[in-house]
């Protein structure tokens, strides 16, 4: 949460001019209240991190303390040990591979598909787009049973492919990229045509470089979704060595019901990449989310 630079908002400068006397004190009050509420709001996450550095006894001590005593890496050493039957490090690698490949697959297929839907005229375009958008309203649960059987027939059960490919047909991604492409001016491709470019060259050389922010946002959202997915992976991945972190946490929970030091360390490991992405790229993520809302 390093970037606290405010984006300019249109409505603010005018309101600032009309400040009534005493509004400075009120805005200070607002800041104090917001800070306190925010602190309470975020304290569970802080407590999760603190507990992960506690010993087994300290983690279940009463009263609960906000400082590990003694400070201990025991929990991490235990869960990250390569020979454990809950191989957290392996799960981390699996999650990373799956989320990266999934994210790449979503961005490539959605961008390619969105381009003709936004910038070409052809027969069947409206129907294709309407069908894709209609599936946004289909609850994912309806796909779970048949996709389990399809994935099983393809021999993908208990392999990472099962969580990379089937969920990559992102209707949201196509919709999101199309909104972006459609807003670009028409004469962009005209210049490329004068240079004798074909459609694919126009796409890769003119359109894609302009679409980098949108693609980055989509890639981030796809990464987060895949990293955090739970229902699908717990049923299609069952051996410890192919599991990912989210179902892994569930395994860790059933294996160590009250070892809260281990569970919190596992939860921290499962959150570090997404929290890091969020801290450094929060504007992309938050603006991607809010844009999807305004345009939806």
């Amino acid at each position: 949460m390093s970037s606290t630079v405010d984006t300019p908002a249109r409505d603010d400068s005018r309101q600032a001019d009309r400040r009534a006397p005493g509004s400075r004190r009120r805005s200070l009050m607002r800041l104090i209240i917001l800070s306190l509420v925010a602190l309470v709001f975020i304290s569970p996450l802080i407590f999760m991190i603190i507990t992960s550095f506690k010993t087994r006894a300290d983690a279940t001590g009463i009263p609960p303390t906000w400082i590990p005593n003694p400070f201990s890496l025991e929990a991490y050493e235990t869960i990250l040990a390569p020979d454990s039957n809950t191989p957290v490090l392996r799960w981390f690698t699996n999650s990373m591979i799956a989320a990266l490949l999934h994210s790449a697959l979503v961005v490539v297929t959605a961008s390619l598909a969105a381009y003709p839907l936004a910038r070409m005229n052809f027969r069947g375009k409206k129907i294709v787009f309407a069908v894709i958008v209609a599936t946004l309203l289909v609850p994912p649960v309806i796909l779970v049973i048949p996709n389990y059987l399809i994935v099983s027939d393809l021999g993908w059960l208990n392999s990472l492919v099962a969580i990379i490919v089937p969920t990559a047909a992102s209707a949201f991604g196509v919709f999101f990229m199309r909104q972006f492409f459609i807003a670009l001016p028409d004469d962009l491709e005209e210049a490329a045509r004068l240079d004798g470019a074909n459609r694919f060259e126009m796409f890769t050389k003119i359109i894609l470089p302009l679409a980098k922010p949108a693609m980055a946002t989509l890639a981030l959202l796809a990464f987060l979704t895949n990293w955090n997915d739970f229902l699908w992976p717990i049923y299609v991945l069952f051996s410890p060595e192919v599991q990912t972190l989210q179902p892994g946490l569930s395994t860790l929970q059933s294996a160590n019901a009250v070892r809260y030091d281990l569970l919190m360390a596992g939860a921290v490991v499962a959150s570090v990449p997404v929290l890091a992405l969020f801290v450094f790229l929060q504007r992309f993520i938050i603006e991607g989310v809010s844009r999807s809302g305004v345009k939806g």
Partner: protein
Amino acid sequence: MTTLKEGGAPSEQRAPRQSRAKSSPREIRRQAPGTPWLFLAPYLILFIGFVLVPIVFGAWISLHTWDYTRPLKPFVGLQNYAELFQPDSAQFQNFWGSMQATGIFTLFSVPLLLTIPLGVALLMAKKFPGRNFFRAVYFAPYVLGVAVVAVLWRYLLDNNIGLVNYYLGLLGLPNDIAWTTSTPAAWVALVGVTVWWTLGFNAVIYLAALQDIPAELYEAARVDGANGWQQFVNVTLPGLRPVLSFVTIVTLIASVNMFGQSFLITQGGPGRETRTAIYQIADTGLRNFQMGSAAAMSYVLTVFLIGLSLVVFWLFREKKES
């Protein structure tokens, strides 16, 4: 303009440039008939294979006694659906019990997730130092997976050593509430955790919409002597209406699809009281391998969900006309 075929052979690059320079936007959008489909192909393969075919295949499965582990999958027509509506059948109690759990959860979580984030967004609507920092703080839990959130809160809500009961005790309130093993406490826990986890998502959408309301409208309202509450009712709420319907639908769908919280925090308990519909469907289909029955349940749930969404659409449309 027969040369207007793109995505084609490189030879066409040598065609006279003058004729191309005159092409209108309409002509730019024309290309060899296969070109758009080449662009669409990778996506459509995934989309047909893992979305369209499964939708139809799921309906087909629901017409069979489909046990994944057995070779024979006899066709039974609508029997799986009929059983869901016969009070004496085995599936009836389980399914409608889980639908009730989903209903309770939705009933309490949706209103909270529509109002609390709006409050947060209103607090942050005006520019002040550190606003983006606060926005990030409220959004942060949303980037965590349900497994992290659930494992964390199971700890905080622990009967004996959890933070929540400890601080309740300090405040002089009962400090022995069984948050994960008794109702209604379990519902408070599940709804509360979900609100904590996802309120940032709705708040961020509200915030973006608030910033799109022209400042002139507020100024005009002030000139007319409107106080803060009147400005909220007459300027803010109407300005939020389009986003409000989006947020309602998205929140509704998410609540009806609740699974991980109940699976990991309460394990569906006590008894089966907090076992949601998704939990029941996954358990029936993917643990007991009664896939025909589970598929039928998922279609019944989908009909409910689409019905609810239509009601929401209709409610918001109705208000617009009046």
